[in-house]
């Protein structure tokens, strides 16, 4: 039902803006791509260890800044983004090792991640300063392509963010549903005690998931730092956006994160274009509508309440 209402809204607006609809659609998908990169890691961690990782935004910022420094050193975007993702994967693993000490205790865990988020934001400010900056896109993705029917162009890099998110989604799906590690991860999410009894080192699995989530956030930071910019406060902004996506999609569901990222991204883009003043209201309104119809999110299920 939410989908129908949303679809109706989109169609109506598309008619109204005519040839701009393609542009707005692409804007929405770009935002969705970035949101998905963030939300997939977030939701993965939550699904497995039931930790609301509020430091996820900090990982985004540090990943972006690390990539920025590396790009200035090496001049290569891919190396910079890759190593940045490796760095945040490491950082995320360290965060897990600390979290493990209070594992199973929800509130202290969340507070701990909040503290980590503040430390990360401050480190970013101390090391990279308050002046905003951005990465240069790789040479092949620089520039823009023509959009038919208007003077507007579309930057190639934004399109590749969508591609990057789809690739990441595909890899995650293959990993989770086509590999042994994936089935172990899913099994641990369902019942980690049982998996542990079967002789599998569950903590290693948790560690891997945290590293993956960190890498995804770092990659998102490099992507966002390229087509948007890196600045103080970006960590909170992106965390809030990905939290909306995760909650709308259903906590713990990768598929839900993908669908919700597209829905939220599109709604936001259309709202900003046509009702700029109310865009925040409309975005949150969508979340409320989704939760009213499906209290556990689009793909969330009651089974999380087992116990």
């Amino acid at each position, binding site marked *: 039902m939410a989908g129908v209402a949303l679809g109706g809204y989109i169609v109506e607006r598309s008619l109204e803006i005519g040839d701009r609809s393609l542009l707005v659609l692409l804007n929405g998908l770009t935002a969705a791509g970035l949101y998905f990169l963030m939300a997939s890691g977030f939701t993965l961690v939550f699904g497995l260890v039931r930790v609301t990782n509020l430091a996820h935004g900090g990982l985004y910022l540090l990943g972006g800044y690390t990539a920025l420094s590396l790009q200035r050193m090496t001049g290569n975007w891919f190396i910079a983004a890759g190593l940045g993702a490796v760095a945040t994967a490491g950082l995320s693993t360290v965060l897990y090792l600390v979290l493990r000490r209070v594992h199973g205790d929800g509130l202290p865990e969340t507070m701990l991640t909040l503290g980590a988020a503040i430390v990360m934001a401050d480190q970013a400010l101390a090391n990279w300063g*308050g002046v905003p900056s951005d990465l240069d896109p790789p040479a092949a993705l620089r520039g823009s392509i023509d959009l038919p029917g208007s003077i507007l162009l579309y930057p190639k890099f934004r399109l590749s963010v969508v591609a990057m998110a789809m690739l990441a989604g595909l890899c995650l799906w293959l990993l989770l549903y086509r590999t042994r590690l994936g089935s172990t991860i899913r099994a641990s999410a369902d019942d980690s005690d049982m998996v542990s009894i079967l002789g599998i080192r569950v903590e290693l699995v948790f560690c891997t998931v945290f590293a993956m989530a960190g890498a995804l956030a770092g990659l998102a930071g490099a992507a966002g730092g390229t087509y948007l910019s890196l600045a103080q406060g970006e960590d909170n902004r992106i965390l809030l956006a990905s939290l909306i996506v995760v909650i709308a999609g259903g*906590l713990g569901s990768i598929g839900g994160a993908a669908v919700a990222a597209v829905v939220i991204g599109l709604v936001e883009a259309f709202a900003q274009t046509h009702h*700029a003043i109310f865009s925040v209201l409309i975005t949150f309104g969508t979340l409320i509508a989704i939760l009213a119809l499906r209290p556990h999110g689009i793909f969330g299920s009651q089974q999380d309440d087992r116990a």
Partner: protein
Amino acid sequence: MRNLGAGRSWRILAALAAVVVLAASCGDDDSTADTPSAGTEPVEAPAGATDTDGGTDADDSMEEPSAGDAEASSDDSSDGSASDEGGSSDDAGTAEAIEPITIGAISTLDGPFAALGDFSMHGVKLALLEYGGTLDGDATRDTVTGAEVAGVPIELVIEGSDATPDVAVEATRRMVEQDGANIVIGPLSGDEGLALKDYIREHPDVTLVNGTSASQDLTLRDPSPNVFRFGGDGAMWTFGVGTYAYEELGHRRIATVAEDYSYPYDQVGAVLTEFCALGGTVAERIWVPLGTQDYSSFVAQIPDDVDAVFFAMGGTDAINFVKQYDEFTGQAIPLIAGPTAVDQSVLNELGSRAEGLVSSGPVVDDSGLAEFDTFAEYLDDVFPGQTPNTFNVYYYVATKSALQALEEVGGDLSDGSAAFQAALAQQSWTTPIGPVVLDDNRQAVVDMYLRRVTDGAQATIETLPLVNATLGFDRDAYIAQGSFSRDNPSCG
């Protein structure tokens, strides 16, 4: 290991987390305000310097400026290390323990404008150094000691805000009520200025000399007798652009893109007032939330058939907007900039995309004024690598105006600072950016410059002499049209 109750509590947890993040992001400036240490450093400072100012909170600094210090510093004064300005004699300094005068400086040392806060404090410190002070250290919150005017020692207290009015008022309250600041220099941003005007009105013996707050109504409507502004406001900074766009560039129909709060309203209002009076029209006024990252949806709203796009934004927003506008349109429709969007403080980050942008504003790099060149040299001497921009120049002019007035009254702040405030209102001197005098509302009448970004610097197109607060329009009519807003002026 997961305890069995965890499954049920996840919903509560998620809700809690959402609330926490919401709060953190709505007031995301607040979260940085909790952590002053990092934000206080100049951008270039090595990370290792963090420890030096880690504890410089209000509580620490308020212990220092006590009466006991006065004796020591007044002894120094006999060495004749007074200002190079010469000025008045020592006859005011006969008492053994002269009560020092405390100057409180406030700027945005945390949050999104932290870098601009650094620039402002450079300006304040330069002025005090001219009066015999020495820098305590390189960090932004390190004060200046040893300065004195007419034999009266001057203490400097530094406070930071995060560009939000309530934090600015709180910081000023600390300076005035705990540190005993007699003169407050600042603040940086528009809405902060309006909030401080209301606060300082309740403390008539304290004098507020504005830094760079460019809100029109700091002085234009309902002025407070102890608030002084030695620079332009947002509308004055944008003076001449509308006329130039119509007459010289031949634009007839424009769109505007600006942040959604009072200061950009003033800029857009000033441009449209001139542009529409000549017969130009505005096709679309697009207002974007402050701190927007992704401008794609707003760029999409710009009509294809306008002659130019006027944009008014600051700092990060300007950098993001220009970059994305460039990527989306290749600047097919020319941009005209607001004053802060192409201020010298962000030109570097804007890079080649800013080349050729026309704007109006208070500071140009080629004015040829001897005072400007001297200032630029002096700034680079004390803070190597720094170049003049609106923030360091304006804070310098504000502080120096106050010090000059203090000197004229021999440091006498008795009778609720009456003599000092009268002298301050009479200040008339040639600043690094041209002559300044104050009108009856204690608002400066100053030169503005129509300028174009050329080779990464601001080159003068035309000097606009002695711009006043009503942009040369009839004062009563101008005030009667009301504060600029989203749809005022109507420009039908």
